[in-house]
């Protein structure tokens, strides 16, 4: 349920809000939610009805979309939670620098050089190997709350 918006990430992201409020009771599994200021994908939601513990509550288990850490929160279902704006943008991979940064080609023809290689071992290997073999690679960059990370890889070259 990610936003497939292809817009240009400008450095100065101020003005566009990073999150929007949504009632806790309406947030579903596989949606997004902010827990402890981290953007997370909702792994599990369980609701407890109103009772001795007070108002009905939603228990969220979320996975941080950047660090893959598990985070938990319990929120009254009528309260608002922050939901992060999560964007995925595809860029063509031009170069990998020695200090671990990637050089990407944006749609407008500019280069984007401020992104590091991903920490996920599998993805890292795929990118490095693919690039070394001279393949044409397109990376998907996920961005939320001012953070960005390469989350997927596509080989668009001829077979």
């Amino acid at each position, binding site marked *: 349920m990610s936003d497939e918006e292809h817009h240009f990430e400008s450095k100065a992201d101020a003005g566009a809000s990073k999150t929007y409020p949504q009632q806790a009771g309406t947030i579903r599994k596989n949606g997004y939610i902010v827990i402890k200021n981290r953007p997370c994908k909702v792994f599990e939601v369980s609701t407890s009805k*109103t*009772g*001795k*513990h*007070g*108002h009905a*509550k939603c228990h969220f288990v979320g996975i941080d979309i950047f660090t893959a850490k598990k985070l*938990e*929160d*319990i*929120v*009254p279902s009528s309260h608002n939670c922050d939901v992060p704006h999560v964007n995925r943008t595809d860029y063509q991979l031009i170069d990998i620098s020695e200090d671990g940064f990637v050089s990407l080609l944006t749609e407008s023809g500019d280069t984007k050089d401020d992104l590091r290689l991903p920490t996920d071992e599998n993805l890292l290997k795929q990118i490095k190997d693919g690039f070394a073999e001279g393949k044409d690679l397109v990376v998907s960059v996920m961005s939320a709350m001012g953070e960005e990370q390469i989350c997927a890889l596509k080989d668009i070259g001829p077979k």
Partner: protein
Amino acid sequence: MDDKLIKSAHTAVFKGSDSLEGICTRIEGYDFNQGVNYSRLLKSMLSSGFQASNFGEAIEIVNEMLNWRLSDEPIAEDSSEEEKDPTYRESVRSKVFLGFTSNLISSGVRDTVRYLTEHHMVDVIVTTTGGIEEDLIKCLAPTYKGDFSLPGAQLRSRGLNRIGNLLVPNDNYCKFEDWIIPIFDQMLKEQHEENVLWTPSKLIARLGREINNGSSYLYWAYKNNIPVFCPGLTDGSLGDMLYFHSFRSPGLIIDVVQDIRAMNGEAVRASPRKTGMIILGGGLPKHHICNANMMRNGADYAVYINTAQEYDGSDSGARPDEAVSWGKIRGSAKTVKVHCDATIAFPLLVAETFASKSKNLA
């Protein structure tokens, strides 16, 4: 031959007996021909037998406990100069520990307890978590009378919680949550900024201050500096609130070690005062008070009012004599267990003890 048999049977049935006259109380109930006089009716219980007599004894023991002064005792050889002073000795009274289970606070007994704390007639209180929250919640919204036989599933779908034949709407707990979470936030702030280390009794005193309502026994306990101990603080709606609060604003610490120091200290530091225990129900409050008194080699007075039985070995059902074996009650103590639901026995007990004394104290 038949004659001899008859004579032998006669001797067996009409065996000569010891005389009890003057040694034991005659059994005699209340005579309604004298009109309906409640005080005399209650006094007549002592001679009515069974639990009425136990109840009558409970009245006597509580009154003895309330009437005792240090000046009643011979001056001990190792007394300090202050302890020898007659005026001081006249002023030293028994220390009263009152314990009760949560269901009693859901019931109307809460108002009897409120009377006792309002007039500082007890010195230490021990209860379970419901005994705290039900008192506070009643200031926010009432509890209602229902019936034991109301079907559970239907009640659940209507958002009604049953406590025996009482009903507490879910809404009441929602109001409680809305009231208490900001207080926890403030307490967390004070923990960080002013290095306050919260304990169950400190938390409870704070809640008594915050509820600021004369119908709450905790309000009066706070005003009169009566410590209320609840070592099992997490086992109730209060605990649920702490649980949820810890997700949104983690870090609130509640120290039970400080409280056990304080509770046992109440017993240990009591001397030269005598100590008395009035315990309604069983469970944690009953044991916690008895255990603290063990630290000073036993309480001097003990009145239990509960419906538990001893045949299963439970502490709840244990009679005072079992506590004597542990040193929780002195061998010389005056004790009684009244097998009765405290909603009946306790208000009547207070009527004939604390409440009738206060008229004299006025």
